[in-house]
């Protein structure tokens, strides 16, 4: 064993550059897989934790429908239900307030400290909890308070029913269910104090319930006994279904990581295969000196083990770095502030072992080839017989795979019913088709090398005909090696182009629906419902032609809650860009203006299983009213909580449900209104506690959210390209080392050093260009496939060729490959002709 180890070590050390490249490739693959896995675990733990924080020990939440909230009777009914053990009543109200010299819209929560503590721990990190009857005290979110210079003991002012009132900060809350509100800073006050200060009487907006019986029994009994309108939520189901978009990207990230590892494995295979071919004579000598085939096999597997261990150790370190970077990125981009990395030794060990195992598996074929070298065969020249026949077989297999790929992709996409999402089975078929496509392309690449490199070397021939010819010859001489090298770059390049193309389509889809939602480009957004009088004031501003209000409210629709947005259909008919689903009957706007009907979004239609013409029972104070679905729109206005809404006319909202005022005011300027209108609008918005927000800003917000995720994906994909480049570099290094004599011969017959350098650089350019252009072509095809496969209700990405990214991938690949081989090319060009000719 020591001899084996020592020989394996010397073999690796004698080709240090190649060994380092190989270990680096393994490290990148292992690092990416470990990084993705560790960060995904951190994120899942954080989601579980935040779900637990949010729910606390509450099993269900009962929300009041009417803005006035539940009466005490309802609380009594709920408390008496046999399944209920604890009820924690909450009242919430959005109010203006001042803190640290600035104005904010606070979400004031009135809570009963004794009951609440049994369901949701307060987690006071500074100061103390208030007593149930403590007047003028408030608890704030610690993180918000610190960021806004508000300390325990200082005071804030809240706008109560009697005007501004001062509250002393009694304590600060750490991560808990209370600080998860998405409506600005929260302020906790004792329940009784809140009811009094805001003149809410004994009303409550929410009841948190701890159950001793089952949720389904509770829900049934609640339906039978409830005296007021409500909606109820099963916390267990609700928090289990809350997902982070990053987790949905997880399979794609993992795919890229596995791809990186596969390229790394190809490099190991290539490295060892080359070592075997270089050392045929040494192997022959070892065999004649008595080494058995098994011993030779062990020698090469030991060499692979050395590379695998070095690469995997480096990979684990890299993986920790990648995970730390991903966690930081997610903290910054998605606000997962509690996210923290935990280094699970089992995961690290498993990925480490995977790296080594994969390396050894890759070594099996070259090791077997080495073991098959007969002592005498080693001194014969390389046999190329049979290579041609096996190449023809591979090409035929590749063509068959391409046909299979075409059939799978087309039939997979055909499973998509008109205007609906591709079913899971269709996605699986399409994915199978994509895998077959890649495998097929890899198999036909050796046969395509001759014509493709002839074509691609044409431009080079104009400037350097001899270099172009010799470089092309070097590439096609070992078609399998070149094809594998090109394949690595092609697959990663294709995926980067596909992801970029798809994201461009997604971004465009994202931004166009945002535009379609509003009738004007200037929005005044209010955290609370504003009275109609405010609208009249804004209408009077110079430069304002008209305004169109949007009011959000929630109703009970059968068993579910439904969010609605009241809009003026005539404004939308005149200025709107709402995108209707195909087949929408004309006159939809007149219908929602003149009759009891609504527009609903495609997603909502799918969730509620309704179509145009169906009716939805909406519960009003006067009873249940049947509303007809007049049309389905691609997207509708999102409610303040982000939920999809149904669009209803302002007249119906007022008449049937008593909704007045607005949450968003869309301002239509006069023709020729000057630049100063913006300033006037901003001023007016500020007066009423609103914000002026251009639609472009809303659209940018949507784009940014998408972009940050896609950026991450592209970054991981680019690592794949880097790995592909590593394989190009390795192949060039091998080609150069194998052609030392040939290059010297060229120098002897008159090729200058710069010509030799040109030959090597041209080889590199040809390989990378073939890979990158192939990748771009396949990637563009994938964009078309994935755009169609990924289209779903409410998400219709547009097919767009990402020219910019294609140019970037091609340029980066070629420049990267040229830069990377510049040094070896220089060294080869400087090699002494005489020494190289003597080399044997």
């Amino acid at each position, binding site marked *: 064993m020591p001899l084996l180890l020592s020989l394996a070590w010397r073999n690796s050390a004698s080709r240090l550059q190649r060994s380092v490249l190989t270990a680096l490739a393994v490290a990148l693959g292992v690092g990416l897989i470990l990084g993705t896995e560790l960060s995904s675990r951190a994120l899942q733990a954080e989601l579980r934790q935040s779900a637990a924080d949010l729910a606390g020990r509450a099993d269900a939440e009962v929300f009041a429908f009417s803005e006035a909230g539940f009466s005490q009777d309802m609380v009594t009914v709920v408390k008496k239900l046999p399944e209920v053990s604890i009820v924690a009543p909450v009242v919430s109200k959005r109010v203006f307030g001042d803190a640290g010299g600035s104005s904010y819209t606070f979400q004031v929560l009135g809570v009963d400290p004794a009951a609440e503590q049994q369901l949701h721990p307060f987690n006071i990190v500074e100061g103390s909890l208030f007593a149930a009857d403590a007047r003028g005290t408030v608890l704030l979110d610690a993180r918000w308070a610190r960021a806004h210079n508000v300390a325990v003991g200082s005071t804030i002012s809240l706008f109560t029913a009697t005007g501004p009132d001062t509250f002393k900060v009694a304590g600060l809350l750490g991560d808990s269910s209370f600080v998860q509100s998405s409506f600005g800073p929260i302020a906790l006050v004792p329940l009784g104090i809140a009811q009094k200060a805001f003149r809410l009487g004994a009303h409550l907006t929410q009841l948190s319930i701890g159950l001793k019986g089952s949720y389904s029994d509770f829900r049934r009994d609640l339906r039978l006994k409830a005296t007021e309108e409500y909606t109820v939520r099963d916390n267990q189901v609700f928090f289990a279904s809350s997902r982070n978009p990053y987790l949905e990207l997880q399979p794609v990230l993992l795919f890229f990581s596995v791809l990186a590892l596969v390229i790394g494995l190809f490099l190991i295979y290539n490295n060892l295969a080359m070592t075997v071919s270089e050392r045929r004579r040494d192997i022959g000598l070892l065999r004649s000196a008595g080494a058995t085939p098994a011993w030779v096999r062990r020698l090469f597997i030991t060499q692979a083990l050395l590379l695998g261990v070095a690469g995997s150790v480096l990979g684990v370190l890299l993986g920790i770095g990648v995970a730390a970077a991903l966690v930081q990125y997610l903290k910054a981009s998605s606000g997962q502030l509690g996210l923290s990395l935990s280094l699970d030794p089992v995961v690290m060990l498993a990925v480490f072992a995977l790296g080594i195992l994969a390396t050894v598996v890759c070594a099996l074929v070259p090791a077997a080839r080495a073991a098959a070298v007969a002592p005498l065969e080693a001194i014969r020249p390389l046999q190329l017989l049979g290579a041609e026949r096996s190449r023809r077989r591979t090409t035929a297999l590749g063509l068959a795979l391409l046909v299979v790929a075409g059939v799978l992709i087309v039939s997979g996409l055909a499973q998509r019913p008109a205007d609906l999402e591709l079913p899971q089975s269709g996605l699986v078929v399409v994915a199978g088709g994509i895998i077959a496509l890649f495998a097929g392309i890899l198999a036909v690449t050796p046969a395509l090398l001759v014509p493709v490199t002839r074509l691609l070397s044409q431009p080079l021939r104009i400037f350097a005909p001899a270099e172009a010819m*010799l470089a092309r010859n070097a590439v096609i001489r070992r078609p399998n090696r070149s094809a594998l090298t090109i394949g690595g770059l092609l697959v990663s390049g294709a995926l980067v182009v596909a992801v970029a193309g798809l994201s461009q389509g997604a971004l465009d889809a994202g931004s166009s629906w945002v535009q379609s939602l509003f009738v004007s480009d200037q929005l005044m957004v209010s955290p609370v419902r504003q009275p109609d009088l405010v609208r009249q004031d804004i209408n009077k501003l110079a430069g304002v032609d008209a305004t169109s209000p949007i009011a959000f409210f929630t109703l009970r629709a059968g068993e579910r809650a439904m969010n609605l947005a009241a809009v003026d259909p005539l404004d939308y008919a005149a200025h709107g860009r709402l995108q209707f689903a195909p087949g929408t009957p004309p006159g939809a706007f007149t219908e929602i203006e003149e009759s009891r009907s609504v527009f609903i979004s495609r997603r909502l239609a799918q969730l509620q299983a309704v179509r145009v013409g169906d009716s939805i029972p909406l519960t009003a104070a006067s009873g249940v009213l049947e509303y007809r679905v007049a049309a389905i729109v691609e997207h509708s206005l999102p409610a303040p909580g982000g939920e999809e809404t149904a669009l209803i006319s302002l007249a119906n909202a007022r008449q049937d449900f008593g909704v007045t005022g607005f949450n968003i005011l869309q301002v239509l300027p006069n023709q020729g209104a000057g630049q100063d209108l913006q300033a006037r609008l901003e001023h007016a918005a500020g007066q009423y506690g609103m914000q002026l927000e251009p639609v472009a800003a809303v659209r940018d917000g949507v784009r940014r959210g998408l972009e940050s995720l896609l950026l991450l994906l592209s970054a991981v994909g680019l690592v794949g390209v880097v790995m592909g480049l590593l394989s190009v570099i390795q192949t060039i290094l091998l080609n150069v080392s194998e052609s030392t004599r040939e290059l010297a011969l060229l*120098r*002897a*017959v*008159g090729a200058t*050093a710069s010509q030799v350098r040109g030959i090597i650089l041209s080889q590199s350019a040809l390989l990378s260009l073939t890979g990158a252009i192939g990748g771009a072509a396949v990637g563009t095809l994938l964009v078309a496939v994935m755009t169609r496969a990924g289209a779903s209700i409410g998400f219709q990405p547009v097919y767009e060729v990402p020219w910019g990214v294609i140019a970037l991938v091609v340029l980066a690949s070629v420049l990267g490959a040229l830069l990377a081989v510049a040094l070896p090319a220089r060294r080869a060009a400087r090699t002494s*002709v005489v020494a190289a000719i003597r080399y044997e």
Partner: protein
Amino acid sequence: MSEQATAVQPTVVADNLSKAYRISTRPHVVVDRVGFTVAQGELVAIMGPSGCGKSTLLHLLAGLEPPDSGRVVVGGTEITAMDERRRTEFRRDNIGFVFQFFNLVPNLTAAENIALPMRIAGSRGGHFDRVSDLMRDLNLRNLQGHRPEEISGGEQQRVAIARALLMEPTVIIADEPTGNLDFTTGNEVLDLLWSRCHEHGQTGILATHDARAAAYADRVLVMRDGRIIETIDLGRRQDHSAAPLISRLAQLGL
């Protein structure tokens, strides 16, 4: 014959050439203050045992590596004064070099191998006639599309000579050109070299340790330990008999 040759301007001048290689820390002198001239049309053989410095001397003459000291002048141009690039270009245009092994680029056909120097010099097609003339002259016509591994050793060497002749070089330098060939094939290659000097007036220098090959030369330089210890004038002869050379070498105790 040699007097005739020295009367005219020499084509190759080796002036006090020395070259040492560092083996471990001590320099090992391979070529030691060697000086001679070769006239136009003359074929000179350099003989000597393995390791006497024959190949290194040829490398210095062809400009494949620079000497430590001394000068090499080819066709009136001092190549030892040139930089690497100019020396390479000069070699491409004026010196044809034939090695014992590894003469051909494996993945180029015979015709492509012959055309190599012109392609390297930037020719785009004007070399076709020249290549086919050479292939006809060297009896290689049927081997045009064959790759090196598909033809015999003698044919490979003839292709190498054709390549060396392509640029109509002033000097043809051959290092053991028959070392790897059988008797008949070796003779074919030597006949070819001799006729280029005799009929085309090109200058030939060949290194060999085979007296039969050296007997084709007009003059034989005998080397030992890096120095020329003897010059044997054979004169231009049609029969290439090795007997006079062998008896002269015997007289010298070599």
